[in-house]
């Protein structure tokens, strides 16, 4: 699904990612944990194609050179980043974005545009699943949404687009336990043998609900430790300090 080799990323000569390697197979859930500023969001951004980084190394996604693709083509090829801080876009309605995004993906797959009625009934069902009112569909993207509503809106987009590689960047932070369950249920409903997840989180709490196959620790732009879900418990217990001594 995804093979990252020796990935470096810097901004204005400031090195952020410094030789990151990671391989993800279809169906796997990888959790990435790490202290603030270790480069977790940068990893998500670089994979999604955000400009502004000097990038080297290689990333292969479904046998394609991911780094050479424009961000919209990455999305159309099934990559999805749930942003740590989803931004507000006044004047663009949520429902417009959802439909345009879905149709862009379908077009890339050679499929016709989605039927308007089918789309609406599917959206209405999925917005219930993330526990948002229907009027959120007709509001501008994230405009005036609370922190939790923004995160749920990211999950709604994920549910509609049914991506094949999903990166969740601290989707759990700032959520109460009910909202956390909504997010986890959404993610779990999409788990399948041909879909993979990178779950970036600060807290092991989320991993009680989204059980990972692997846990990695990112520090100073590199993966410094990898293990099973018990690694998350150890981090919860002992913090990141022991890694410096290791």
């Amino acid at each position, binding site marked *: 699904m995804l093979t990252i080799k020796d990935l470096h990323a810097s901004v204005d000569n400031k090195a952020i990612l410094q030789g990151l390697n990671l391989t993800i197979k279809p169906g796997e859930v990888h959790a990435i944990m790490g202290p603030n500023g270790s480069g977790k969001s940068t990893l998500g951004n670089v994979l*999604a194609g955000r400009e502004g980084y000097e990038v080297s190394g290689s990333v292969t996604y479904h046998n394609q050179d991911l780094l050479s693709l424009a*961000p919209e083509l990455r*999305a159309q090829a099934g990559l999805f980043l749930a942003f740590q801080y989803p931004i507000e*876009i006044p004047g*663009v309605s949520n429902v417009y*974005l959802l439909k345009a*995004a879905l149709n*862009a*993906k379908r077009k890339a797959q050679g499929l016709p545009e989605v039927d308007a009625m089918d789309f609406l009934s599917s959206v209405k069902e999925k917005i219930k699943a993330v526990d948002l009112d229907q009027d959120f569909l007709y509001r501008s993207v994230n405009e005036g949404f609370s922190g939790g509503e923004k995160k749920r809106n990211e999950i709604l987009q994920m549910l509609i687009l049914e991506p094949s590689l999903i990166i969740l960047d601290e989707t759990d932070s700032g959520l109460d336990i009910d909202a956390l369950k909504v997010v986890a249920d959404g993610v779990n409903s999409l788990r399948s043998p041909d879909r993979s997840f990178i779950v970036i989180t600060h807290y092991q709490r989320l991993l009680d609900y989204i059980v990972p196959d692997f846990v990695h620790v990112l520090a100073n732009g590199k993966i410094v430790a990898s293990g099973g879900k018990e690694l998350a418990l150890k981090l919860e217990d002992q913090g990141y300090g022991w890694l410096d001594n290791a």
Partner: protein
Amino acid sequence: MLKTITHYQQLFANHIPADALTPVRNQAIDAFSAMGFPTNKTESWKYLRLTVLREQAFTLMPTSTLDPAVLTPLLLADCYHVVCLNGALMPQHCTVPQGVSALRARLDESAIQTLIAQSDLSLSLVALNTALFQDGLVIDVHTKLDKPLHCLFLTDDAGALTTSQQRHVVRLGADAAATIIAEHVSLTTTAFFTNAVWHLELAERANGTYYQVFNDNPKAIHIDHCILNQQAHSVYQGLSFLSGGALVRTDLEQRFLGEHASCSVKGLTLAQEKQQLDQHLRLSHSVAHCYSEQFFKGLALDQSRLIFNGKVIVDQDAQKTDAHQHTKHLLLSSTAEIYTKPELEIYANDVKCAHGATIGQLSDEALFYLKSRGITDARAVLIKAFNQELLDLLKWPVLKARVSALFAVKA
């Protein structure tokens, strides 16, 4: 330059018949001859390059005929219709309420003569218009009009390299109400020069709504000068959409003459290629207790120039004035230029004035967010979002679709 001044003097001498306004017209042609066209040294014209006007000798627009097949799709449903072709009213294509007629037929009326005689001949294009105007509309409304009045101003191939000098008078009587939609459409792709002066007179408690759609062809020059006088308790709402033309300059010279009147003017401008689009507004609070609001948005792409100048003057006696001015512009190319200038001159002490002006760019973060969702034309989507709040003020679906199409920018 001198050559074109002589040219317009000759047009005046040879083509403008004597009428009730001849003394005013004589003064006007003299005033124009002394000034010529504005140059970059004229403060309020300094960002416009008027070379074409100074060099091209536009002759007077000939009359022409209109193919109904061309006209019909342009007419908005559920409206009264006024159709002008090359500056001339086409009565056979009009369906109008009482009180609408050609200006030529009304020049003997003293009220109309007075209005025209008050033209500010120190403004060179107003002077040129006063000397040369051939015709225009008189719209007198004394009731509440049941339907909007859709005025189509068309220019066809016969109008190539010619000028139409138009003078229009709109008068809403006490308690009258009317919505006027002035839409300028080119049926030709060649250059022409429209120079129009409008008088809008709102009597006590009159309610006027005036929509303007400037969709001239990419070579057209269009000057539109509007003088708006508002009596007590009158309500004016103006909404302009400016997207066509090579060089378009609109002026609104508004004045409150009675208390408790309100004036709201809004507009959206899209400048592309080498277009020069310039809007100047001057709102004068000369009496107390009036409300004014300006809200303008605009975008400049390619090598275009967009100019906005909104001036609010609050006289010493205009206490309790409530004036707002907000502009938001997007500069979308490194070779485009935007000049915006809010000007507030306040001589009264008990007033409420709010203003804000921004010139920005599309948000990189918003662009990335949309692209990260697979959207290919993220830029066009954000531009549409920027335009939407003004486009949404158009209540008629057909007109809204037509104007929205003018403002759609390709990805």
